[in-house]
């Protein structure tokens, strides 16, 4: 089983590295990742939202829909932990009896 896992890992690793071949070099400003979208955020964010911290502006307003579902995800984590760990009243008596 472990050998199978090792083979699967190596295959995935090779495919991943094969995929990184035509990525831009590390940190050059002309890479497509920092293309039209992020230049718009840098130039227009302060003007459109009056918030100096661009990350908070993008987080709260441009991609606020993501952050809303983020809060719901962490809310669910709290709920699931309570529902999995807490023993309801009925269960305790059985253990004691």
């Amino acid at each position, binding site marked *: 089983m472990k050998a199978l896992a090792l083979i699967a890992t190596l295959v995935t690793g090779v495919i991943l590295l094969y995929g990184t071949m035509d990525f831009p070099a590390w940190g050059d400003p002309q890479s497509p990742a920092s293309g039209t979208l992020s230049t718009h955020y840098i130039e227009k964010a302060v003007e459109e939202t009056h918030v100096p911290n661009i990350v908070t502006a993008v987080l709260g307003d441009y991609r*606020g829909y993501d952050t809303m579902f983020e809060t719901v995800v962490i809310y669910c984590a709290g709920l699931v932990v309570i529902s999995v760990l807490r023993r309801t009243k009925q269960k305790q008596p059985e253990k004691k009896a």
Partner: protein
Amino acid sequence: MSTSNLHIYVMAVPLLTAFFVNLLGRTSKVWIAPLVVGSLAFSSVASLVLMGRVMTSGGFSYTVGNWVPPYGIELVVDHLSALMLVLISVVALFASVSALKSVEQELPGREHLFFTLYLILIAGLMGLVLTADAFNLYVLLEITSITTYGLIAMGKGRAPLASFNYIIMGSIGACFYLLGVGYLYLMTGTLNMAEISQTLPVIGGGAAVATALAFILVGLWIKMAFFPLHGWLPNAYSLAPTGAALIVAPLMTKVSIYLMVRVMFSVFSIDYLFLQNPLVDAVIVWGAAIAIVCASALALAQKDLKRMLTYIIVAEVGYMVGGAWLANSTGMTGALLHIVNDALMTLCLFLAAAAILYRVGSLDFDKLQGIYRKMPITMAAFTIGAFSMIGVPPTAGFFSKWYLILGGIEGGHWEFVVALLFSSLINAVLFFRIIEIGYFHKDGEHHGHETITEAPLQMQAPLLICAVALIVIGLGSGPLVEKIITLAIPVGL
């Protein structure tokens, strides 16, 4: 209340009521039922109105936060997503009516926690169906996953172990999807699906784009339990509390298939998928055929009704993935119609299983002796669901299987057609075995069956409506296909 953002209310109402269910349900349980059923009834009606609007005035896109699409997150409401919205809210409404009863029996002190997770799961599924932003899709995948982990972990006995295995597999799937989106972001610089699909031809299909496609597909296949990656599904769905299985089984895999179709056509264009690398779709259809055959064979080996149904779900996933990759419009029509039919069929069978479990207490075959005499109405609906799963003409299952077989023949994939017929045969054997146990075996030993009466009305009503719906949709699949599904298929397929 301007009705231009109607689809947001369809998704937002269950989300907001979920928080109130947690707040109010904590003190008194009487609040839970009206809140849950009320919010789902509202979103069912609203999604039907939305469906009517989309059919008359065509689909539209909606920018959250009033930003021009690539900068803000864009939601798209077209024929396919409106149809899925209707499907999700109607299936959730039926499942919630029956789940209210079965949760009372199985999870006495925790109804409010269960139904909060239940409503957040439904809101997450609706969000998934609406979104047209690649990263937002990942966040919503996580919401639906974490609520499903919670719902499954609430079960008794081995449920936490099954849920832990599901967490590991689900995280691998979600992270593979995120990897694929990361590669696409690094190559195109945007996250909006429409933008990506415009910049991809400009870049040309390089190594990174092929890897991104591979990882997104493998990620979604793990999420939908496509055959070789289905290890987590049988334990997770059969050990979950019945109320959870009612909502998770019909919807989770079908929405994942919808996501695969959405990613295939609104991110990667048709000629990239089918023309530039012709080998890919042939291999996937072969994989789907193998998936159907193996999953149906495994279903034969099961001794418990619910586990058998979970293996049939894995086989149905093979139907839809194969249908989507047949690369012709009849195959795609069959796949999309099968998403709707299969959700209703699975819901009908799981509702019947929940009713039986509520009365008999266990689902393995030797307990089901002579069940037809004791629970005639439930078993009648179960038989209609079984006929639809086998593909007997009046019911919905036949029509989507018919389109899939036509698509398979048209595409020349004979192994897919043979697998479909083989699986229908095995479904027939499976279900007739249960019908035979239910009818002809008289309940030999009299120890357990003191007085098994009919299931309570609250569990029977949704079951009967669902069974009737199977026949109505079966007969009405003609107009359903012309008006909605043919418009949902991208042009040029």
